[in-house]
C-alpha cells in the first residue's frame, strides 16, 4: 500500500450541550490512499457528517475536536495547525461537496464569480485568469455553453446543473482530496446517475481521492473501492467493497443490507433492525449496538469490542469474531421483546 494521503487516528469530536456531552465522533481511525475512493456509510446520527466536518475543522462551539485526535495530511496534523495554515488547506488541498446545492451556493453571485472566488482566495491568479479557469471548470463538469452559464445565477440552473457547479467549485484548485457529503441525495435518480458518472470520470482524469459519505448502499456499491461503516460515533466495520457486500461481518452492516429493498429482488418481507439509533449523549455500555443486535449475549452488554481483524483489510467491531459459534444463535433483541419491533430501547427523545 502506498503512503496514505490522509491518516485519521483516534478522532474524537464532542459537543458540550445542555443535555450532556454528545460524543458524536468517538475514536475514529482510517486512512485514504492517493487516488482512492472510500465510502463512509451509516444512518442519521452515526457521526459520518461530523467526521467530514472535523477533517476540514469546521466544527463550531459547543463542538470541539478533542486533544489527542490526529488528522495527518501533507505531513501536518490538521487538528493542531493554526487557522491561517488551515485556510490554505481548505478548498485548495481538501475540498467539500455538500448535499444541497441550493444552500451551498450564494444566490446573489453568478456561478462564474463563485468559482473564480475560490481561485482568487487562494491567490492562484488574476481576476481574468480566475474567471477563465472558472469557465474551463464549468466545461469540465459537463455544463453546456459554459461561457454563458458562468454569468447566470444559481436559481437559473436545474438541481443537477447546480450540483455540477458545486463540483466545479470543489475541483477548481485541483485538490488532493474531495469530501462529498451525500452529493446525490437531493437529486433524482437519472440525475444521480449522471453526477456519479461525472465524479468517477473526474477522479480518473485528476487522480483525486474521494471520501464519499452516503446512506445509500447502492451508491456505495457502484462508486467506491473500500467502505467504512459507522454506528454510534465509531467505525464498526471496514472492508473492500466486494468483501463487504458478499461477507458482511458486523450484525449492523448485515441488518442494513437486509433492510434495503432492491430492484429485481424477490418480494420477501424486509429484514429490520429493531429500535432506533441511541442519542450520542448516552451511548450504551459495552457494544453500542448490543440492544438492537439479534446475536447479543451478556459479554456484549459489558465489554466494548475492539476492531477485530476478519481478513485482509477487513475489520469488524463485534465479539462474534472472537466467538463465531454464536452466530448460529440468532434471537430477538431483549429490549424489544415486550413491545414489538420498532419500539425504542431507552429514551424516546429524538436527538
Amino acid at each position, binding site marked *: 500500500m502506498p503512503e496514505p494521503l490522509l491518516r485519521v487516528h483516534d478522532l474524537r469530536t464532542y459537543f458540550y450541550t445542555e443535555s450532556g456531552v454528545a460524543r458524536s465522533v468517538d475514536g475514529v481511525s482510517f486512512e485514504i490512499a492517493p487516488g482512492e475512493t472510500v465510502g463512509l456509510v451509516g444512518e442519521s446520527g452515526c457521526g459520518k457528517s461530523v467526521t467530514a466536518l472535523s477533517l476540514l475543522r469546521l466544527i463550531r462551539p459547543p463542538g470541539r475536536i478533542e486533544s489527542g485526535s490526529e488528522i495527518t495530511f501533507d505531513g501536518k496534523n490538521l487538528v493542531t495547525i493554526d487557522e491561517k495554515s488551515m485556510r490554505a488547506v481548505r478548498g485548495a488541498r481538501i475540498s467539500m461537496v455538500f448535499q444541497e446545492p441550493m444552500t451551498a451556493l450564494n444566490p446573489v453571485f453568478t456561478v462564474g464569480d463563485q468559482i473564480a472566488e475560490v481561485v482568487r482566495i487562494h491567490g492562484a491568479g488574476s481576476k481574468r485568469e480566475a474567471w477563465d479557469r472558472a469557465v474551463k471548470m464549468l466545461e469540465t463538469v459537463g455544463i453546456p455553453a459554459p461561457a454563458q452559464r458562468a454569468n447566470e445565477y444559481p436559481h437559473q440552473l436545474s438541481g443537477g446543473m447546480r450540483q455540477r457547479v458545486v463540483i466545479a467549485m470543489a475541483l477548481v484548485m485541483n485538490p488532493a482530496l474531495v469530501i462529498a457529503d451525500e452529493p446525490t441525495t437531493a437529486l433524482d435518480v437519472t440525475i444521480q446517475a449522471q453526477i456519479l458518472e461525472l465524479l468517477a470520470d473526474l477522479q480518473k482524469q485528476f487522480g483525486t481521492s474521494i471520501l464519499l459519505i452516503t446512506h445509500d448502499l447502492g451508491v456505495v456499491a457502484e462508486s467506491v473501492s473500500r467502505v467504512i461503516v459507522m454506528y454510534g460515533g465509531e467505525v464498526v466495520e471496514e472492508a473492500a467493497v466486494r468483501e463487504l457486500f458478499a461477507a458482511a461481518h458486523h450484525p449492523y452492516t448485515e441488518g442494513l443490507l437486509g433492510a434495503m429493498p432492491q430492484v*429485481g429482488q424477490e418480494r420477501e418481507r424486509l429484514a429490520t433492525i429493531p429500535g432506533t439509533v441511541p442519542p450520542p449523549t448516552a451511548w450504551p455500555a459495552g457494544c453500542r449496538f448490543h440492544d438492537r443486535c439479534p446475536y447479543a449475549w451478556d459479554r456484549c452488554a459489558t465489554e466494548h469490542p475492539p476492531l477485530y481483524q476478519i481478513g485482509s483489510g477487513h475489520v469488524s467491531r463485534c465479539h462474534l469474531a472472537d466467538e463465531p459459534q454464536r452466530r448460529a444463535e440468532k434471537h430477538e433483541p431483549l429490549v424489544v421483546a415486550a413491545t414489538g419491533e420498532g419500539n425504542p430501547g431507552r429514551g424516546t427523545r429524538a436527538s
Partner: protein
Amino acid sequence: MSAAMTIPHASTSPLLSVHGLVKHFPIKKGLFGKPAGAVRAVDGVSFDVMPGETLGLVGESGCGKSTTGRMILRLIEPTAGSIEFDGIDLVKLDNKQMRRLRRKIQVIFQDPFSSLNPRMTVGSIIREGLTIHHIAEGSAADSRVRQLLDEVGLRAEYMSRYPHEFSGGQRQRIGIARALAVEPTFIVCDEPVSALDVSVQAQVINLMQDLQRDRGLAYLFIAHDLSVVEHIADRVAVMYLGKIVELASSDDLYREPLMPYTQALLSAVPIADPAVKKNRVMLRGDVPSPANPPSGCVFHPRCQHPAKDAACAVLVPPLEEKAPGHWVACIKQPPTGVDWSIQKAAGGTNPPARYLPVITPNGTPNGV
C-alpha cells in the same frame, strides 16, 4: 408469481377510478396578473385502483405525481377530469359532502416533522378524526387510541407525549395511526418513507404491508424510490411531465419495461451489489419545463429508441395495452394502434420495432 395474483380482485369494480385528470397552474405576469400560459402539472391522467390493491405512482421531481395525489384528496382542485371513488365523483362534491367522504380516504405525508401539530399530544392528534367523524368519544375514544398505537407498534403511554419527543420513524407511525383512526378503505401515501433511514424505512414498509393485509386497505403509493415501489406495489404507473407513460403489474414493469423513459429510469437505480456490472441507459440533460412541454411525445427529445423519428415530435402517443395489463405510451413499440401510414404521414421514417435494452443485471442482487 402469475399476473393474476398481482392484480387482486381484477374482476370486481375499482375502488378509485380517475379519468382524464388535468391540473394546469396559471402563470401570471405583470401587475394585474395577466395569464401568460400554464404549467401543465398533470395533463390527462387516468387509472384505477382496486380494493385492497397498492398502485405505485413513480416519476422524478415535477412529473405531477404528488399533484395527482393531492387532487384525489381534493387538497388541489382539478382543472378537468373525474375522480370516482366507490361510484361517487369526488370533483362534484361540495366541501361538506367531501368532508364526510374523507373518512374513507386518508393520507400519509412525507415529512413526519411538519405533518404533526407540535402543540397537540399524540393522543389528541389521533383522537381528532374520531371526534370530527363522531366515531367515538370519551373513554371509548381513549381506548381506541390505545389500540391504534398498539397496532402501529407504539406504546399506549405515548398518547400524552408531544411529537417532538419522537424519532422520524415513530412520527411516521403516529401519522399512520392518525390515518387509520377513521377506518379508511383507501390511503394516499405521498413519499411515506423517503425521509427515513434504511432500517427504519424497512420497519414502516413492513407495518404498512401488515395493515393492508389485516384491513384490506388500498394504497396509492407515491414515491421516487423505485426499489421501494417494486417492493410494495402490485401495479405501477410511471409519470413523466404530467402524463402516465407506462402502467403495468410490478413484475412486468420491472422485468420488461417497454417505454424508453421507464427503461432509462430503471437502469439509473444503483444496485447494491458491486459484483454486478450494469448496462446503463444514461439520460442526457434535464427534464423539460412543464410550462412548455415538447410536442408529440413529451419524452422524444431525450428518447433513445432506435426507431425514434419525426413522427414522435408530432403524434401524441396514446396509452395502449401492448400486452395483457401492460399499458405503454409509445408509437414505436409494437403493437400500436397508430398505424404506420399515420406515422409516415406525420413524417415518420422508421417503422415501429421492439426495443428492449438489457438493463436488468445478471445474477441475483445481493440480499442478506
